[in-house]
């Protein structure tokens, strides 16, 4: 009998879910994660580049705060990332895995660009901008609602569907650029460079001010929508438990479709802002991966619009900082990517320790 007992061994660790961590402690863990990330990054910096890590970090901060222009770029990029994050949030809250923000932004931008290209000379800029806004939002809605309809009625997989719609959008943009740029360079120059038709106006002497104001308004609206509207409440119920939603008589199909209309519309709007307010042109890289980064921003903020201001700014700060050290210290781009990767890895990793507890095998049992 004793020989048998020897074989019986509990695993060294076992992991249990925890639900009761105090918010303050959770933030403590996140802070520690950043500190740990900075230490690990320092080691990498020293071993690879021989630079003083402090110097590198200072440069990183300068990337976002080094000059007024850099600061406004930080704000502008944050606004765009925030806008797309806000767009995916209601869908994700509903557990509808919308991986198609990239494509939804792209078709929105394409619609704006098309209006600028075809109607730039014939319509007054104000009217043009309104038309651009409407067509962009509509395009975003179409791209968002198609997978939703299929999901609601035929239970198709929305992740695959939205993902594939991205590629359709990319090809569509490529097609129109070929159509519009006859020289075959496949690069669309700035549209209406001379007239500025369809460009969002500068206000307060700032090129991006309109973008910032619009995104700020969407942030407030989304916060109110999710927390205080009946529709926002329905989104939460459907996301938490479809069974409960059915039980209280919520029309789940309707909620799925309605929510993706909103999600797609805001993505389309983001595309409009990128074309009309920022780039004044369109390319396949218009969304630049923000459709995916936005998912991370939204999750890290626990789907809280106000928190997303900080998470999106943090991500942009890292990206800008990485670019800055690559330039200023003549480092390979990869080094800065490694640093960004390490920091994000630690932050996401810390969520594991916030949500789970690791129990080590107790000594008493081991001794037996």
């Amino acid at each position, binding site marked *: *009998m004793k020989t*048998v007992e020897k*074989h*019986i061994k509990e695993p060294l660790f076992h992991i249990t879910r925890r*639900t*009761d961590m105090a918010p303050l402690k959770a933030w403590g863990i996140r802070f520690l994660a950043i500190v740990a990330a900075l230490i690990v990054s320092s080691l990498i910096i020293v071993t690879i580049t021989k630079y003083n890590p402090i110097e590198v970090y200072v440069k990183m901060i300068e990337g976002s705060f080094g000059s007024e222009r850099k600061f406004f770029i930080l704000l502008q990029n944050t606004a765009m990332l925030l806008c797309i994050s806000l767009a995916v949030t209601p869908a994700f809250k509903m557990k509808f895995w919308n991986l198609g923000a990239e494509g939804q932004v792209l078709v929105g931008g394409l619609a704006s660009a098309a209006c600028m290209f075809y109607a730039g000379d014939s319509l007054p800029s104000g009217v043009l901008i309104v038309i651009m806004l409407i067509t962009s939002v509509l395009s975003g809605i179409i791209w968002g609602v198609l997978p939703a309809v299929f999901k609601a009625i035929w239970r198709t997989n929305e992740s695959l569907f939205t993902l594939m719609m991205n590629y359709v959008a990319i090809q569509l943009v490529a097609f129109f650029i070929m159509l519009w740029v006859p020289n075959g360079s496949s690069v669309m120059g700035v549209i209406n460079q001379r007239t500025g038709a369809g460009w969002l106006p500068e206000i307060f002497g700032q090129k991006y001010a309109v973008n910032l104001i619009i995104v700020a308004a969407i942030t407030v609206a989304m916060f109110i929508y999710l927390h*205080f*509207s*009946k*529709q926002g*409440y329905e989104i*939460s*119920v459907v996301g*938490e*438990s479809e*069974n*409960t939603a*059915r*039980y*209280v*008589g919520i029309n789940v199909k309707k909620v799925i479709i309605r929510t993706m209309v909103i999600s797609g519309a805001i993505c389309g709007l983001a595309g409009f802002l990128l074309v009309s307010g920022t780039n004044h042109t369109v390319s396949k890289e218009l969304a630049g991966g923000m459709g995916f980064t936005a998912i991370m921003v939204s999750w890290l903020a626990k789907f809280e619009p106000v928190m997303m201001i900080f998470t999106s700014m943090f991500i942009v700060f890292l990206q800008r900082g990485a670019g800055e050290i690559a330039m200023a210290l003549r480092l390979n781009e990869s080094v800065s990517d490694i640093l960004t990767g390490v920091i994000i890895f630690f932050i996401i990793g810390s969520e594991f320790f916030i949500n789970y507890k690791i129990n080590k095998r107790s000594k008493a049992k081991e001794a037996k």
Partner: protein
Amino acid sequence: MAVAAIELKNITKRFGNKVVANKNVNLSAYKGEILSLLGENGSGKTTLMNMISGIYYPDEGQIFINGEEVVIRSPKDAFKYKIGMIHQHFKLIDVFTAAQNIVLGLKEEGKFDIKSVTERVRAISEQYGFDLDLNKKIYEMSVSEKQTVEIIKVLYRGADILILDEPTAVLTPQETQKLFNVLRRMREDGKAIIIITHKLHEVLSLSDKVAVLRKGEYVGTVITADTDESELTEMMVGKKISLNINRSEPKNPVDRLEVRNLSCVNSEGVRTLDSISFTVRSGEILGVAGIAGSGQRELLESIAGLQPIESGEIIYHNPKTGSDDELRGKTPIQIRELGVRLSFVPEDRLGMGLVGNMDIIDNMMLRSYRRGRSMFLERKKPKDLAERIINDLEVVTPSAQTPVRKLSGGNVQKVLVGREIASSPTVLMAAYPVRGLDINSSYAIYNLLNQQKESGVAVIFVGEDLDVLIELCDRIMVISSGKVSGIVEGRGADKGEIGLMMTKVDGGASDENS
């Protein structure tokens, strides 16, 4: 005496600190013998078998195979000791063929040789009388065919000890007979077979011995030939215990809800309800007794408008208008709009009745948030309601803003029942409302149900503890396999009689031909 093919000694398994799924269970199965493992739902049958097949690991006790003590830590170990388990929910890959599923996971030398596999499977099939097309894909198969694949799978692996978890639950009577013939042949071939069931007539017609579990404890093993239905029922349900639950006489009962010949078929084509007819009156509690999965959930969900109904009628006698309203085919919202005040406490509290991650206030709103034209939520009234329920029902919670999943089971249930009775229902349906609750919380719930009854509500109470049903309910409807096997008066009802009605195969009283 021969050595047992498998013997369990003092097996104990706990989940967490509180729940004891199995306590000091002793069991032996011999070669050439069919052993039935009998017990109500939640009596620990499946947990026990999962320990033999390596899915769980026992906290205490020993397992012997052919007289030698063994340690079974994984399904692989179980396979090594020639133990094969056929689970209630099949573990097959839908897009593979029968043959592919049978050899899946086997590490045999050489390449996959479909011919030799076919040969061996044919030999097994002929030996035991199976009938199976090896090249058919799983998703094209009927439930019975899938089960055949599962059985051949374990035989192909050379199992000597077969465990079948409720194998007949999903089969038609003809398919059941076929399965039993196969099992008898296996017995002749010297296999040890353990079959988990709660159908008494099957136990009596098939097995050599019966082991009975009750609430995780081992009651005893009897030889089938020496026993009868009533002895087994008594072993299974135990002696009557007095609980002293209050029960008042119904005052002026009038028919409130009438269900006529209600039938339902689930998405897999299995009949879940079969011509159910009954009437609930105002001011009484109608108990629904039955083995879990006999159609209780489907019955309540059809009444609540959450289940498609195949045929039958659900008539609500509206006390206000005096009209008879048909509820069949209506959504929960349409039912409300008719003025039918139907409240429903579902079995799955946090998965259906409440949203675990929302606080008490937001859970109060689930029923009422639509009110008013504004597109914004109104949280004042739900907040007042939440606070009133916390006060009146003595819900232990830090605040009304606490997510309900953080509350204990009893408090979760108080929140749910509180919300459902807050809308002053005329019909209240409660499925297993005291499951998992401690004594005090249970009595609090009984009191709430009694108050509702006294204020003239028609209460439907689906329960599992027969002692509670007998003391609380005015009438008890017993269902078995989706049919009504009888409706008895709660006062003076006999536990053994109800137990027998629960385990009857065809629901009808005529079935005594086992």
